[in-house]
C-alpha cells in the first residue's frame, strides 16, 4: 500500500505557483514517456451568454483557433499537426477549458499556440461563417440523437428557470444570430489571466514548465475582465414532471430519471458518490444494471451518475431501451430509487464500493491526462494538494447512515424529473 500511496500525486511532487497576473500553474513531472499534457480552464463559460445568443461562449472557444495576429487557421494547425500535437478548447457553463499534448520537445510550441489563441485571436469573417455552418450541422445532428435530446429535456425540467437548463451549444435560432462583433466583444470582456489555471504533466521539470508558461502568458494583462453573473437560486420540483420528446424513426429511446445532487464542495458529495456507485455503477452498473439489464434484459446500458460541480448538481439514471419497454424500465428504476431511500445500502455493498474507490485510484491516475485532470480538480474545488493522498481516509469515513441520509436529502420519488427521447 505504501508503494501505491507514493505513486499518488501530493504536495511532495505537485508544484503550484500563482503568477503576478493571476494565472495559476500546477505541474507534476513524469519522465516515463517522452510526452507532455497541458490542460486548463478559464472563466468564460456559457453563463455569460444572453438567451437570444445562447451558444456565444461556445462559438468563441471554437473560433479562437481560426486565426490569430501571428498565424492563419491553416498555419496554426500546420504547426500543431506537423509534430503530432493536439490542442482543443471546450465550453462549460462556468468555465471554458482546453486540453493539449505533444512530445516534450514541442512544449514551447504548444504554449505559444495556446497563448496566441487565448490572447490575440482575430476572428476572420470567412472562417467564422465556415464554423457557423459546422456548428449548425452539429445542432441538426443533436436534434436526431436520442441521448443528447433526452439530456436536454431532462435539464430543462430539473433546472427550469435556471441557467443550467440551457445547452452550452445553443439552438439553431440563437447561433444564427451571433455576429462577429459579438465574438470580438465576448473575447475582449471575458477572456483574461484572472481565473486561468494551467496544469502541465509529463516529461518536463516543474521549474522549466513554469518558466515556459511565464514566457508565453506571464505578460498577459486585461483591464476590466468581467466577472461571471451570480447563479440564481434553483427552484426545486414540487412534483414529478415528465416529458416525451418525439424523434421519428428511432429504434431505441433514451430515458433519464433523476433529481438534483450535491455541489462538489458539499460534505454530502462523498456519501452521494459512494451511494451512487452502489445504485448504478459498481460491477455491471450496480443495482440499476442488475434490475434493468441483468434480470430483465431490457437494456444494453442502464446506470446512474452524479454530476457535481460549482453549483447544484444532478443525480440521474440513464437507460437506452426499446420504445415499447420505456414504461417498464421507468417503473423498475423508480422502484429501485424507492428501495434505495427506504433501505439504504448494506454493509457488504458499502465495503465493496470503498474498496473499489480506493483500489481504482492509481489506475485513473495512470496517464498524464488523468493526472492533469486530477490537478485541475484539486484547484477548481479547493481540495488541497494532499487530496489524493487523503482520499482513502475520506472514503473510509463514509457510513451507511451517511449514505442513507444523503440519499433521502436528494432523492424524492414523488419529485423526479423524467425525460424520454425517441419514437
Amino acid at each position, binding site marked *: 500500500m505504501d508503494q501505491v500511496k507514493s505513486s499518488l500525486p501530493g504536495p511532495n511532487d505537485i508544484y503550484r505557483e500563482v503568477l503576478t497576473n493571476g494565472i495559476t500553474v500546477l505541474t507534476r513531472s513524469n519522465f*516515463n514517456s517522452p510526452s507532455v499534457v497541458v490542460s486548463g480552464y478559464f472563466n468564460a463559460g456559457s453563463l455569460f451568454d444572453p438567451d437570444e445568443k445562447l451558444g456565444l461562449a461556445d462559438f468563441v472557444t471554437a473560433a479562437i483557433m481560426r486565426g490569430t495576429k501571428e498565424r492563419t487557421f491553416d498555419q496554426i494547425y500546420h504547426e500543431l499537426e506537423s509534430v503530432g500535437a493536439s490542442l482543443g478548447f471546450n465550453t462549460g457553463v462556468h468555465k471554458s477549458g482546453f486540453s493539449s499534448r505533444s*512530445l516534450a520537445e514541442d512544449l514551447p510550441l504548444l504554449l505559444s499556440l495556446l497563448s496566441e489563441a487565448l490572447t490575440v485571436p482575430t476572428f476572420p469573417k470567412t472562417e467564422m461563417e465556415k464554423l457557423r455552418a459546422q456548428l449548425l450541422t452539429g445542432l441538426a445532428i443533436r436534434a436526431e440523437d436520442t441521448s443528447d435530446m433526452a439530456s436536454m429535456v431532462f435539464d430543462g425540467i430539473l433546472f427550469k428557470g435556471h441557467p443550467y437548463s440551457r445547452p452550452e451549444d445553443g439552438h439553431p435560432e440563437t447561433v444564427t444570430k451571433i455576429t462577429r462583433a459579438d465574438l470580438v466583444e465576448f473575447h475582449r470582456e471575458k477572456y483574461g489571466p484572472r481565473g486561468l489555471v494551467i496544469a502541465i504533466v509529463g516529461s518536463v521539470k516543474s521549474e522549466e514548465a513554469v518558466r515556459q508558461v511565464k514566457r508565453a502568458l506571464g505578460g498577459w494583462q486585461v483591464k476590466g475582465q468581467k466577472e461571471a453573473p451570480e447563479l440564481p437560486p434553483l427552484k426545486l420540483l414540487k412534483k414529478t414532471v415528465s416529458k416525451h420528446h418525439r424523434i421519428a424513426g428511432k429504434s431505441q429511446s433514451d430515458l433519464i430519471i433523476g433529481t438534483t445532487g450535491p455541489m462538489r464542495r458539499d460534505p454530502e458529495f462523498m456519501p452521494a458518490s459512494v451511494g451512487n456507485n452502489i445504485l448504478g455503477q*459498481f460491477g455491471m452498473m450496480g443495482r440499476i444494471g442488475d434490475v434493468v439489464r441483468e434480470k430483465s434484459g431490457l437494456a444494453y446500458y442502464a446506470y446512474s451518475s452524479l454530476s457535481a460541480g460549482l453549483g447544484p448538481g444532478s443525480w440521474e439514471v440513464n437507460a437506452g431501451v426499446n420504445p415499447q419497454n420505456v414504461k417498464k424500465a421507468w417503473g423498475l428504476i423508480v422502484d429501485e430509487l424507492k428501495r434505495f431511500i427506504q433501505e439504504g445500502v448494506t454493509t457488504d455493498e458499502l465495503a465493496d464500493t470503498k474498496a473499489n474507490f480506493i483500489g*481504482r485510484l492509481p489506475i485513473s491516475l495512470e*496517464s498524464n491526462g488523468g493526472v492533469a485532470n486530477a490537478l485541475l480538480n484539486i484547484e477548481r474545488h479547493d481540495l488541497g494538494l494532499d487530496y489524493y493522498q487523503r482520499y482513502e481516509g475520506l472514503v473510509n469515513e463514509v457510513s451507511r447512515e451517511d449514505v442513507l441520509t444523503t440519499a433521502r436529502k436528494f432523492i424524492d420519488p414523488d419529485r423526479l424529473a423524467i425525460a424520454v427521447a425517441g419514437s
Partner: protein
Amino acid sequence: MKNNLTEIILSNGLKVLLKEIHTAPIISSWLWYRVGSRDEVQGRTGISHWVEHMQFKGTPQFPANILDKAISREGGSWNAFTYIDWTAYFETMPADKVDLALRLESDRMSNSRFDSDEVASERTVIMSEREGHENEPLFQLGEAVQQTAFRVHPYHHEVIGDMADLRTMTRDDLYSHYRAFYLPNNAVMAVAGDFDTQFMLARIKELFEPIPAGKEPARLARSEPSQNGEVRLSVEGPGATSYVQVCYRFPIASHPDFFPLSVLDSLLAGPSNLNMFSGGISNKTSRLYRALVDKEYVVSVHGGAQATIDPFLYTITMTVHPKRKPEEVLTALDREIQRVREEKVSKEEITRAIKQARALFAYGSENITNQGFWMGYAEMFADYNWFQTYLDKLSAVTAKDVQRVVNEYFKPQSRVVGTYIPAEGRRT
C-alpha cells in the same frame, strides 16, 4: 528476455507475452482469442460477440453476480471486445490483486456455464445494443457499405450480427462456438506492468497449463473475388444531414504496402490512431480537410483503415455540408485523389507523417493498459515485432512508394460509395 519482454509458448499451445514495466503499481492482463465475426456463417451472425457477453455470466467457481463484483471490489477495471478477427478480454488491476484476474481468465477459458435463463435475458440485451446502433445514421450506412463490399468473405456482416440471427440462435449454438474456439492453443495471453517475470510466468503456468489443448479451429477462408466496377448504394433514414462513405480495398496488416498506405492515410486524412486507450490528433491540415472542409463541400472528413488478417477496407466518411449535394462531394474527393496520383508527394509530407506516428506512439506508451493491449493485438494479425518495428518501416517509405500504392489501391473500379439520404430536406 529482451527489452523486459518475455515470449513463451506453454505445453498446451497458449502463447504468453510478458513485459515488466515498473512505473506504477499496476498490472494489465489481456487474453486474446482467434475468433471474431469472420468466423460466423449465415444464421449465426453475431455469435462471437454474444459468446463474449456470456463470458460475464459465470462459471461454477465464479457465478455471474460474484464475478463482476469481485474485480470491481479490488479496484480493477475490465472489459472485453469482439472484432471481425478476434475477441479480447482485459483486466487492469492494482499490482497486488492481479491473481484474481488470472484465476478468472483461466477458469472461464473452459468452464463458463451458458445457463439457459442467462442466454434468454442476454438475447434481449444484445438486441437492445443493436437497436442503439440502429439509431445512428452512420451505423446504417456503414453496415450497408460493408455488406456490399464483401459478398463472399465473412467480413460481410457487422460484429453485432443480424437481428434475424439474434432472435433465433440457441444456447447450444453459443456453447458449441465457445467450446470450438476458446482453447489455449487458439489464444494469446499478454501481461504488462509491475511484476517479476519469473514469478508471473510460474503462476500463469500453474493456472493455464492444466487446460488441455483442443483441435485447432479452422477459420472460414472464403476470399472475396476482385471487384470489377464501382458500386454505389444509398440508405434512407431520419434526420436532416447527408453522409457519404467511400471504401477502397486495403491490404492485410502484414503486407509491405500497409506502411506506404499508412503514410498516404496520414497525408490524406490525418494519421489514424491505432491505440485503443489514447486519443488521436486533429486532421485540419490534411489534404482532404483542405480540399473538402475548407472549401465547404463537407463539414467533417475522416479516413482510416484497420489492421486485419484478410484484406479489408480503407474508409473515408464525410458529413455533407448543408449547401452541398453528395455528388459534388464525390467529384471534389476524386479531384484530390487524382492529385496524389499525378503529383509527387513531397519529402516533408512523409517526414511529417513519421513524426505524427512517433507522437501517437509516445502517447500510447503513457498507459500500461495500452501497452498490454498492443502486445496481444499485434499477435492477432502479425506478431509483436510488427509493433516494435512499425516506426522503422514507416521511416523507410519513399514518395515513389506512396504514389505506387495510391494507383494500386485507390482505384474507382474497386470501391464502394454509400450515401445516407435524410428524410428531412432530401436534396436532389
